[in-house]
């Protein structure tokens, strides 16, 4: 019997126990995972980690009152006690008329193979993974004699997750993930810059469900080295307002924060600047944003959401107009709508790519910023204000010029979306946010 089938059996026992103790409704997530990780520095293994973990999350409810338990102990006698304690707390909760299980007709597993599991996963020897990690470090260090390693790493995991509820939903999925990367450090001795005598770090990684989809180690090493060396000699830019080209990683950061404002949970809580904007133009007409759960092999793909609602694609921004929000059952109940299958947030958030190469985007800017790093918590999705620390490379006459650091960039989400005029071609697939790079016409830079 597969692990998922075993988990399903246990899930049914736990639901039966909950019912027999008096729970009217119950939802259950039950998961186990096995992970491996190796870190290498200076041709030595710095750390080697291998372990299995497990977790159960059970929400019990009765008459609109709910209480939950979490445990990593799968023994039924332990769980029996926890279920009893949880049910004891229930009468002290208030009735929440908006809390319901999903409509049964919305639940189900989307058809199709989403390529979650690498069949080779279990056949890869630890030694081979360690060899790769050592090799990646070697490949990175030969790129330039000034480079040292902060860390070269490889990690992978396999997980088995079952979701079940008292509606009768019972499904499970096994997934694998593989990741390899290197982070480098270099002394910045460029006397013309303001970081002379300081250090810089940067790196690159690859991440995929299937190990054979990882980027070649040579490529990772080259990108990592290029990224760090271009930071040497950074200066603090002058305060100004200029066009900003977001690298794919920074585009991902921006869209990740924007997606919070599109979640029903934040909308009904009045913690989203988009709360009253459905049906309105909120972005440049070129902007097409959707949530696409059914893309085989992509990291955010899923067949059903965290409460068993069948997954399907959802258009969020069409020709710049906000057309849908992402809704869980609870948020949908609050807003008088139906669940869109977004309990648990985004699946794959997809910004439709445009026509431009990286070079063309840079060439389009006479005087502006190529943004490569953002830091801090200065993106406020309640107010829509945006002010964050940045690093990047200045663009002069369409060419990358000096690196810049220790500045902030500021605008608002709505201005940024409105000013998002040019979209790149290539999409970064290393996360659940699938985005190209893009150009924003104008942002406030604060430096000297």
């Amino acid at each position, binding site marked *: 019997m597969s692990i998922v089938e075993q988990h399903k059996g246990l899930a049914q026992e736990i639901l039966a126990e909950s019912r027999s103790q008096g729970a009217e409704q119950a939802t259950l997530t039950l998961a186990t995972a096995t992970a491996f990780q190796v870190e290498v520095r200076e041709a*030595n*293994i*710095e*750390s*080697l*980690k*291998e*372990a*299995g*973990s497990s977790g159960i999350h059970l929400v019990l409810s009765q008459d609109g009152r709910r*209480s*939950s338990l*979490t*445990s*990593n*102990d799968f023994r039924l006698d*332990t769980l029996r006690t*926890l279920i009893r*304690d*949880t049910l004891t*707390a229930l009468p*002290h*909760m*208030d*009735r*929440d008329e908006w809390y319901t299980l999903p409509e049964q007709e919305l639940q189900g597993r989307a058809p199709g193979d989403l390529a979650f599991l690498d069949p080779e996963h279990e056949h890869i020897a630890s030694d081979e993974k360690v060899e790769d990690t050592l090799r990646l470090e070697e490949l990175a260090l030969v790129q330039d004699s000034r480079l*040292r390693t*902060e860390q070269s790493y490889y990690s992978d995991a396999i997980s088995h997750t079952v979701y079940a509820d008292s509606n009768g939903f019972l499904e499970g999925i096994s997934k694998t993930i593989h990741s390899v990367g290197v982070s480098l*450090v270099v002394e*910045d001795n460029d006397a013309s810059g303001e*970081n002379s005598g*300081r*250090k*810089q*770090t940067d790196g690159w990684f690859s991440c995929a469900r299937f190990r054979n989809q990882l980027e070649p180690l040579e490529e990772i090493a080259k990108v990592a080295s290029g990224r760090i060396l271009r930071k040497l000699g950074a200066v*603090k830019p002058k305060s100004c307002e200029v066009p900003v080209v977001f690298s794919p990683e920074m585009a991902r950061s921006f869209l990740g924060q924007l997606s919070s404002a599109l979640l029903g949970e934040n909308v009904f*809580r*009045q*913690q989203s600047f988009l709360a*009253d904007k459905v049906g309105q133009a909120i972005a440049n007409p070129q902007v097409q944003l959707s949530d696409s759960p059914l893309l085989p092999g992509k990291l955010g793909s899923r067949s059903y959401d965290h409460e068993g609602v069948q997954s399907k694609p959802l258009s969020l921004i069409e020709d710049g107009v906000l057309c849908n929000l992402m809704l869980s059952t609870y948020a949908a109940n609050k807003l008088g709508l139906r669940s869109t299958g977004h309990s648990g947030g985004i699946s794959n958030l997809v910004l439709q790519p445009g026509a431009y190469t990286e070079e063309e985007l840079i060439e389009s800017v006479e005087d502006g910023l190529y943004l490569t790093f953002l*830091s*801090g*918590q*200065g993106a406020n999705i*309640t*107010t829509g*204000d945006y*002010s*964050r*620390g940045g*690093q990047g490379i200045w663009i002069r006459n369409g060419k990358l010029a000096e690196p810049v*650091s*220790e*500045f*902030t960039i*500021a605008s608002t989400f709505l201005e940024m979306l409105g000013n998002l005029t040019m979209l790149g071609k290539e999409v970064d697939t290393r996360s659940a946010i699938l985005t190209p790079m893009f150009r924003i016409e104008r942002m*406030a830079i*604060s*430096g*000297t």
Partner: protein
Amino acid sequence: MTALATTLANAFNQPSFSDTPHMAPTVFERQMGVDEAMMQQVLAEALHNGGDYADLYFEYSLRHSVVMEEGIVKSSSVAVVSGVGIRVLQGEQTGYAYSEVLESGPMCRAARAAAAIATNGSVPLEQAWRFNTRKLTNHYPVLQTVSDLPLTEKIQLIQQAEATTKAQDSRIVRVTVSLVDSVTHTQIASSDRDLLSDTRPMFRMNVHCVAQDGSNLQNGTAGMGGRVGQEVLGQADHPVRLGKQAAAEALLLLDARQAPSGLMPVILGPAQSGILLHEAVGHPLEADFNRKGTSAYSGRLGEKVATECCTIYDSGTIAHDRGAINCDDEGIPAQENLLIENGILRGYMHDRISAQHYGVEASGNGRRESYAHYPMPRMTTTFLANGESDPEEILGTVKQGVYCESFSGGQVDISNGDFVFVPTVAWLVEDGRKTAPIKNFTLIGNGPEAMSKVTMVGNDFAMSEGIWTCGKDGQSVPVGVGLPTVLITEMTVGGMSE
């Protein structure tokens, strides 16, 4: 890259038991049958390939939370988590594995996985030895933990906070109040034969609200907590205080204007501004970064790295503070460590590996998020010692600048020392007076450079309330910060107004 984020993401905090932190037998022996013989067997298994040292880190935690939102008590939860982390060290190399089943078979299997790091040949432990049970000073004795408080009384507390927040103004349109308490039992057994145990209570109460004026929506938050017991709830009217504070913040921000932009003097108000130290000084002085030569402060011991008015400590011994620990997660008793003395760099924060690398005593900073993680050098409570200036006098010296009172968090790039922190409540300063509230900005600076521009330190030292969680390499740990009023003569303020 490391982030100090607020406690709204209330990951792992908790409250505790009433007696000393070394009850014998521990919960692990009493309830799970983990006795000395079993621990010796697992340690022997861990060292069967060789290695210099092995340790077992047992953890059992019980966490409760209850949340009120939209005027109703919406949900409660309980979480019970247990496991053991098994570590083998050979030189500076770490082998790590963990088991969530505290039985001999699974623990020995994990020990064999951790042993894969070692290659220098088995060093058999002698038979029939005894552990040395080490006593610890308890920095967080509590009479009764918040966990022991009946649910109905917890609900009264959050209801009171909710009602107070709402009552402040009709523009307060949403209130969420949460109360989280936990007790974590830990036990460390090492191949050095040390056996220590600790019981760590944690409590956290948080109020979040939204104020609305037309289309202008603003957040307000207030929180408190620490390794405290029920007695702290009787000492002051915390729910009322937090409710008023959260509402006041949101209402103030409704009237705030856009912050200025560019280089200017920055005054950091007492308590929460301690995150300056956490980002600008604390992280870069964690010795793993220095051992690897990646920190802006690497190789600078004994050098001047700040102005003379800066004396900075990290201490795990501050009674009941959120950052307090009786011992670190490698079994080293907590202590007060001098990091910078009158501007001179005096020491780093160490774990066992970095202490050995530098040939110094471990400093009690080897911490981890849980049994599923190996320890690394981490801060506990980081603070700047009191200075001599009157805070009003500091304000009076600034002609045009900003004054920051509270923060949502910060982040630092260890290698070049650049850091940001993000104020929530802040004021424009004009001609020595706070004139108007400002919003929507980030402060950015460089650690060593910013510390060389601290020209005045106030005499109004205050510790921040226990709300901070620090993230590093994917591991979160509770920390504390503290600071008197400080003047930084020049920093980049990233606002939007001309």
